[in-house]
């Protein structure tokens, strides 16, 4: 799990913090560049299937061995998450199946910063920022995220895996999304409460 966390950090998380000390004029130019990181690119899930679809890998179960292209619709070409929220062996599984698609964006920003002013939403001169006076991880949302061939299926299943004995799955609905969505503003993450 540590590796997962590390890689997620490495891939999507590049924050910096604005310095709190007063700055000389000639230092200011450098500090402006340290305000955070601008991320651009895409995230793609199972564009040509996943590792279980590889027919050349004899260890893969037959039910998973599919020829997965970008145009294929076989539900085994996507990723699958099964959750047992019941009482264990006697209950079924809630499944998010056939998860595929590409999310493209330009202009997501990441930075950590101190909020100690502003946020006078009422316009009455009371700064919620001054009262907050803490550090946050700020995710600046890209104005637009482009969805390409994004799909998933919500289902109920008798077992966790398609290879398990007695596997029986009922699909509830399928979702397929193409197009742009608007995501504007900032997402602020910060610890709160008693640690």
């Amino acid at each position: 799990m540590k590796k997962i966390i590390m890689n997620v950090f490495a891939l999507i998380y590049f924050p910096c913090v604005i310095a709190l000390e007063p700055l000389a004029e000639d230092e200011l130019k450098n500090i402006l560049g340290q305000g955070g990181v601008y991320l651009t690119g895409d995230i793609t899930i199972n564009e040509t299937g996943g590792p279980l679809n590889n027919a050349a890998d004899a260890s893969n179960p037959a039910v998973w061995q599919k020829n997965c292209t970008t145009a294929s619709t076989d539900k085994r070409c996507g990723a699958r998450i099964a959750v047992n929220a019941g009482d264990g062996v006697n209950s079924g599984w809630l499944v998010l199946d056939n998860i595929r698609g590409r999310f493209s964006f330009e202009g997501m920003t990441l930075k950590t910063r101190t909020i100690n002013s502003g946020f006078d939403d009422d316009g009455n001169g009371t700064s919620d920022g001054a009262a907050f006076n803490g550090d946050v991880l700020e995710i600046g949302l890209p104005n637009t995220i482009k969805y390409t061939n994004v799909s998933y299926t919500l289902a109920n299943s008798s077992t966790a895996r398609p290879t398990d004995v007695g596997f029986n799955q009922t699909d509830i609905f399928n979702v397929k999304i193409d197009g742009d969505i608007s995501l504007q503003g900032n997402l602020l993450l910060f610890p709160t409460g008693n640690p």
Partner: protein
Amino acid sequence: MKLLNSKLLNIKPLNTQLLLIGLSLSTSSFALKALDDASLSGVQGQAGLTIEQSQLLNIGSLTYTDDGNDLSIEGLRFSSQTNVDEVASRTYIMDVSEDGTLRVQSDIKPTQMHIDGIRINNSAASFGDFTLNYEAVTNFNIKGMAGGGLEGSFTVGISNADMIWKTNGHSMSFDNIGYNASVDNFTFEYDAIDNSKGFIRTGLDIGMDNFDFSFSTGALSLAGVSLGELAGDLALSANAQIFAGGRYGDEGLTFHSQVSILSDTDNYVRFTDYDSVGEGNDLFMGDFSGSVNLTNLTLDVESDHLAIGFDQMDGSFKAGTILIGDSSKPIGSIELEFLLSDYIDAGNSANNRYNRFQLYPGIRQPDFAAMPDQIKSYAESFYFDQTPTSEGLSLATQWNLTNAELSYIDDGRLVVFSGIQSFGSANTTIDVRDKKIAIGISDLKGSYSIDGLRVGNKTAPLQGGAELLLSLEVYQAMDFDIDGFTEITAGGASGGGIRIDGDYFFSNSNIGLSIDENGEGIWATGVNYDIHLRDITFDVEGDGLKINRGEQWSTMDITNLRWGNKETGTSLGRVKLERFEKNSLLAIMPGGAGQVCVGGSLNAAGDGCSGVGRFEDRGEQGMTVSLKAAFANAGTTTDGTAIARNRLTWENNRTENSPGEYINDTGTQIIFDNYSTNDGTGTTDSNDYGLQANLNIDVFETKVLKKSTGTDANGVAGNLGDELIYDSSARDSYVYIASPDAAQKTLRPLGFAVQGNVSFKELNIDAVQLKHPNVATPQTVFYGVVMQNLDLTTNLTATPIQ
């Protein structure tokens, strides 16, 4: 490799010194043969003198005394290699040329130099015994200088040499050493002036112009198994000044030196790892240049140790070519600038930082009683067979790296790991055991930090991105207190290479996960990190460097995960990560992402996008880091010393012991218990695929769009969606352009371009649980989470916000 170079450089003068000692002391130890009349007539007819010498030299003890402390070399012997009671032969030919140059040629037949032990003030333990087998041909030319002093040139060729270090009956060796060196012109003058001790002293000034040497050796060999082969070629020019009087007392030695590594495409260092069928793969660094300056390097013999220290060492280093395995794919080039210097805090001597090394004969065991419980039993086991008379080397080290800048250049695009600083101290023991080298480190206390990255040029603004090193488990900053015990054996997964077993414990450490140059960001503080490695192998293969991790279990217990400052930042609570892996793998391979379609799919030819997307050709150079984490199901470790599992626990709402101090296991916990990977049919299945993560890393231009209409923080105006384009390659000013042309696109901001891929066949979590402090057993929320068949690819480029 660079360190090894230094060692070889250091060894050579010592070797020469010992040879001179052998020459000067041996005259009374063996008899000159009387020449008959016929031989005498032959000598008279020649221009010079030929001396044929047969030498068997035994010196009981050779002692160097410094301020009343003795450094004794015991049992020094020069003999034949085949029989220590037989003579070794050598021939000297001397003549004087017309310009007054004394020319001395020597031909040294196979000889063994052996030292039984080196002790300080008759210490109970010694540094071990040393043996050097060698044969050599040398040629010295020396003449007087007009203003006093000596100058000349020399060539040395050493062949069929072996160097062996033995402690307590076990040995390690460097086999098949070949060494050739030449100096176009050297000078010895007694005119160097120094006042670093508060008074003027005169010393010896040595200069070497174009000191060119090459070497090759079977790298470290243990019990007949070699780690590989080491070879190199280097051209230097150097000056050194030597003075009487060290750092402590009245006697000792002081050196200053200035070394310039000449820019020469023939300079290289190469490590070759041979596989089981004898095929070699190289780690290669070539096209060197650089310099190293050393100020006040001192040597003193103290009551129980040899003290070495320097006030300052600064320098730079450039390797134009770096190859890992595949000789057709250079990963780029590196440049390093560094400064190690003492720091004196006039207001508080507790903050003083030094660069010092104390070498003690024998094994100085740590204070087990003062060790944390988590590592104590491993430490006691590590030193179980060692006694006060056990041979070996003990080191007490202090260092202060004031600053370093490490640059990586990929297809002409540069990224700098900037503001690297470190200081600390450590106690180390090194000895040779049965087929292994044992290295024990205790009280390794200190700190390091990396300010951030500079991309494009060395004066570009600092930015984030050093977090990329997390994939290699290198953190951006750390305050550490480490005890660790390592055993190294020769032989990797196949053929040569290195194999490591070790146990390590980090006490109350602070780890910077993502911070800026002011130390602000996200910190893991109060970290106790317990790591156990078994059967870890390092091999160079045809496609890269491979690190196989046979078995590894660890617990990282983070007392507070803080936002902001590491001491006062707001805490998210406690995070405890337990890990258990078998047969995981880390590979570092040459070559980055190559051709990429961002936001779309590559076409079949790989030279453009198939439909939508932005095509980028990120070049031939770059680096790929490939990870395979095979998370094992809960169980007993192979050596039976622990029960290990993969588990993530987040705890908060803990009882506060004192202001800011919280008691673990008194709060509410969410637990992701016993997560593991398998090959697709459940936890009873094999676990060959694991969780794989590949990072293709390049430095490349990035499309940066303006996020709102108006002027930015630098006062540059633009409209929403315009692209940021620099005015020139200097990248010190920019404009916003709605539709840049091809030339303008080459002036996009540079960034760290990472094509990442994460995939697994199955990642299984046994249970997700919640635990209230008032109940003994956690309550289960989910009785299982099964994730299957994921292949997630990202194309992301990170640039600083303007």
